[in-house]
């Protein structure tokens, strides 16, 4: 019964989605408010129907209805409830339905929230969003149906969502016995939250793109579409960033290679929209402040959404060889088709509007050291990163196969050689751009603004050099990354100082009112700070990772960069709640004769899994300085007296995760509704603004 309910609800959503597209189109053409209203209500119905569909799949997972093929393939009787829930996105069919549901959430919410304020754009927003939702629903229902059930056809088992005539259900007991269980690699908190975060990030960009589409179609090419969607873009952006960080954390905890980013095509596919999305978030400020780059911003948001669809296609179709990719699936071709048509349609609309002269900029460009000039450079670097990463992950393999009939892939060396330069350029710009002014700024003024942050940077560099991080390139890297950080901190401090002096506020309320007055600027500084903290962590953990391996008898010790690790005992055959059998080595970690931690690196064995049935879980002692990260590789099965370990020292790695937290706080701050009209503030001449602590907003 469950499967029928879910299946029917999902079909209902599809039919209503198609209806809403036509109703909205017709409503806009005929200026019929009742049709547009009906299209709006249809988006709410889609959301409702998909909630029911997703809900039934969730109930099926929780109630262990193994006749449903999806439930059978991702869960088994020994799995704990938490992983039963996360199994909802544990494999293609379920995650596609989850994806559709999220699409409907964003569509319904964006339509509801902009109904009054952007009435003219709404019909076309609905057209775009419902078309995308309908497309993915069609994929889900026709190719990757999560409601398919097993039926016995003589000796064979067949799959069908509806009850086939004359066929009976297989025995429940047998199904439960043979159920697969979630892939052990996915049984991790990072993996439980990483896909939804990433999906939220991906799908979040649907909203700005839909509004851009509506602006292009209606000809309302003012800043309305940007104003309406700035927060949506920020939400999408931060979720995407979080998804990437959580994915890295999962790889670090579960894959057991001591790293968190491997330049794998699927990782890159998620990183690409983030890069263009970041360029977009910077670039729209120029349009809002100076009326420049209108075509460019349209292009950027379309490129972002196009990268989202391409990334989804690349990940879900099995196009590329990757540890992370889904099973090879038939959804590849239709996805390629929608990617192509969406990109082509939107691109065509831009060209059309531009040729009609409707995307003309309000001002002329005024010098490369103006804020807009530096933002343009920033956009250039982000796009350059996009292009080189796309080329390395997809461009080179695909074009070599198309044109030379041989497949060429680019290894990690390509990325480690090409991208550091561009990241360095980004951090340099991150240090300079906040000091520049809209319209024009003098080099001398930029230089003056950099003096204090540069002094602070030089003062903090020894912290890293004394840790032994003294290679020339890493010092250069640390310098520019820290400089960007100190610029953000110092600019905030100056504004705060002015406020405290003039109004006698205490620093905390002063800071909060700074955030309230200019959330974009001071939230932006916090975001910059988060990125700086991540940058420092990446340099330290990439350039100065140390590793060793040792086979120890119980009581013996090994040392690595000042740490001593002693193998205390072995605890074999511990059975966990989800049925896994854990073999644990207990080790203690010492530094300067001081006991730091007792770690339990282990090896988990999953008796119910046929293919990949074991997993190496690291033990780690984390401090801000570094991670002491130890893997249990092997042990003497019989005497259990000796075991082999691999140990990594990962300097500054925790800054990567902490930076992520700062990123969230900064984004939340940047989304805060602005209480001060920015135009009034911008009209004040530069010296006065300084006095008011408003900076060069």
């Amino acid at each position, binding site marked *: 019964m469950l499967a029928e309910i879910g299946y029917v609800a999902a079909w209902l959503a599809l039919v209503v989605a198609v209806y809403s597209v036509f109703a909205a189109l017709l409503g806009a053409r005929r200026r019929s408010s009742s049709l547009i209203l009906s299209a709006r209500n249809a988006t709410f119905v889609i959301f409702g129907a998909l909630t029911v569909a997703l809900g039934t799949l969730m109930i099926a997972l929780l109630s262990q209805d193994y006749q449903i093929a999806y439930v059978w393939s991702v869960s088994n009787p020994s799995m704990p409830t938490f992983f039963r829930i996360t199994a909802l996105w544990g494999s293609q069919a379920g995650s596609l339905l989850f994806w559709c549901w999220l699409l409907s959430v964003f569509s319904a919410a964006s339509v509801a929230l902009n109904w009054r304020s952007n009435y003219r754009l709404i019909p076309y927003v609905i057209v775009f969003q419902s078309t995308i939702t309908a497309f993915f629903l069609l994929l889900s229902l026709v190719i990757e149906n999560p409601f398919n059930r097993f039926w016995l056809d003589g000796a064979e088992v067949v799959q069908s969502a509806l009850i086939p005539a004359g066929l009976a259900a297989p025995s429940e007991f047998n199904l439960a016995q043979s159920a697969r269980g979630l892939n052990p690699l996915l049984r991790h908190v990072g993996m439980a939250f990483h896909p939804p975060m990433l999906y939220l990030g991906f799908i979040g960009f649907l909203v700005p793109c839909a509004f851009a589409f509506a602006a292009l179609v209606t000809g309302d090419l003012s800043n309305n579409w940007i104003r309406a969607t700035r927060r949506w873009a920020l939400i999408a952006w931060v979720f995407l960033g979080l998804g990437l960080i959580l994915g890295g954390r999962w790889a670090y905890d579960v894959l057991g290679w001591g790293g968190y980013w491997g330049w794998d095509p699927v990782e890159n596919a998620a990183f690409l929209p983030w890069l263009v999305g970041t360029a977009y978030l910077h670039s729209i400020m120029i349009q809002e402040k100076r009326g420049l780059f209108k075509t460019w911003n349209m292009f950027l948001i379309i490129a972002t959404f196009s990268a989202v669809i391409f990334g989804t296609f690349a990940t879900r179709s099995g196009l590329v060889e990757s540890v992370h990719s889904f099973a090879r699936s038939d959804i590849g071709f239709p996805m390629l088709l929608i990617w192509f048509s969406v990109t082509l349609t939107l691109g065509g609309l831009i060209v059309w509007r531009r040729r009609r002269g409707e995307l003309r900029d309000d001002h002329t460009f005024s010098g490369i050291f103006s804020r807009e000039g530096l933002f343009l450079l920033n956009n250039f670097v982000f796009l350059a990163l996009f292009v080189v990463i796309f080329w390395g992950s997809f461009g080179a393999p695909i074009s070599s196969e198309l044109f030379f009939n041989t497949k060429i892939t680019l290894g990690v*060396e390509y990325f480690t050689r090409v991208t550091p330069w561009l990241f360095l350029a980004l951090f340099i710009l991150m240090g300079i751009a906040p000091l520049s002014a809209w319209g024009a700024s003098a080099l001398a003024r930029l230089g003056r603004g950099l003096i204090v942050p540069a002094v602070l940077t030089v003062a903090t560099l020894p912290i890293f050099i004394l840790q032994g991080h003294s290679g020339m390139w890493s010092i250069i890297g640390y310098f520019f990354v820290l400089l960007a950080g100190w610029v953000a901190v110092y600019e905030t401090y100056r504004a705060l100082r002015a406020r405290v002096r003039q109004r006698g506020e205490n620093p905390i309320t002063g800071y909060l009112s700074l955030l309230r007055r200019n959330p974009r600027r001071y939230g932006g500084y916090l975001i910059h700070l988060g990125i700086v903290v991540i940058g420092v962590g990446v340099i330290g953990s990439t350039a100065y990772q140390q590793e060793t391996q040792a086979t120890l008898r119980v009581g013996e010790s090994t040392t690595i960069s000042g740490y001593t690790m002693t193998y205390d005992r072995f605890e074999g055959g511990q059975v966990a709640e989800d049925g896994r059998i854990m073999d644990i080595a207990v080790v203690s970690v010492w530094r300067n004769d001081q006991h730091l931690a007792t770690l339990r690196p282990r090896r988990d064995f999953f008796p119910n899994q046929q293919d990949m049935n074991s997993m190496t879980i690291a033990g780690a002692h984390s401090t801000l300085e570094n991670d002491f990260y130890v893997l249990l590789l092997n042990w003497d099965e019989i005497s259990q007296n000796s075991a082999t370990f691999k140990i990594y020292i990962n300097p500054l790695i925790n800054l990567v995760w902490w930076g992520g937290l700062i990123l969230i706080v900064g984004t939340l701050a940047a989304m805060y509704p602005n209480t001060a009209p920015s135009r009034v503030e*911008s*009209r004040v001449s530069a010296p006065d603004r300084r006095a008011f602590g408003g900076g060069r907003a």
Partner: protein
Amino acid sequence: MAEIGWTKTAEAPKPHRAISGERLKYLIGGGALLAAVVVLMVSGTLSGMRYFITVDDLLADESLVGQSVRITGAVIGESINYNPETLDLSFTVANVPAENDDLGMALHLAVNNADAQRLEIVMENEVKPDLLVNEAQAILTGTLGADGKFYADSLLLKCPSRFSEMVPEAGESAAEPVIEGEA
């Protein structure tokens, strides 16, 4: 320090010649930046480039001996040999045809086909990955030595279950569903 104008009319149109001079400057600057990125990409591509070929392709072309390439093959479970103390890892892979509709099935057939070309893989200082199991797809980067062994420095594995999630291993129990990969 510039005063910012808010309306179109406030901005005095610049003389045409001045714009084109500016434009030229930006074009040259932009061109230089673009060239720098292209140089980076080309040099990176040359250093990171690997042919991605099958075991058959590799063994058929003698000129590839000693060249860094990327190959794909099906892991033969019983050939896996691992010394956890020295971290020496070796195993054999069987050729998997480049074109196949069902990779899970292709891997299964490759391992069980005595006529498929096989290649011994040697890796040093490599922790045996949990995914290294029978019929897994191995994607290896390394060089074919003159001794006919493939010396790999990186190993990427995909588990058969990732390809055909709906196919339980046959022969476990008679009542178990035997399901085609089509969902």
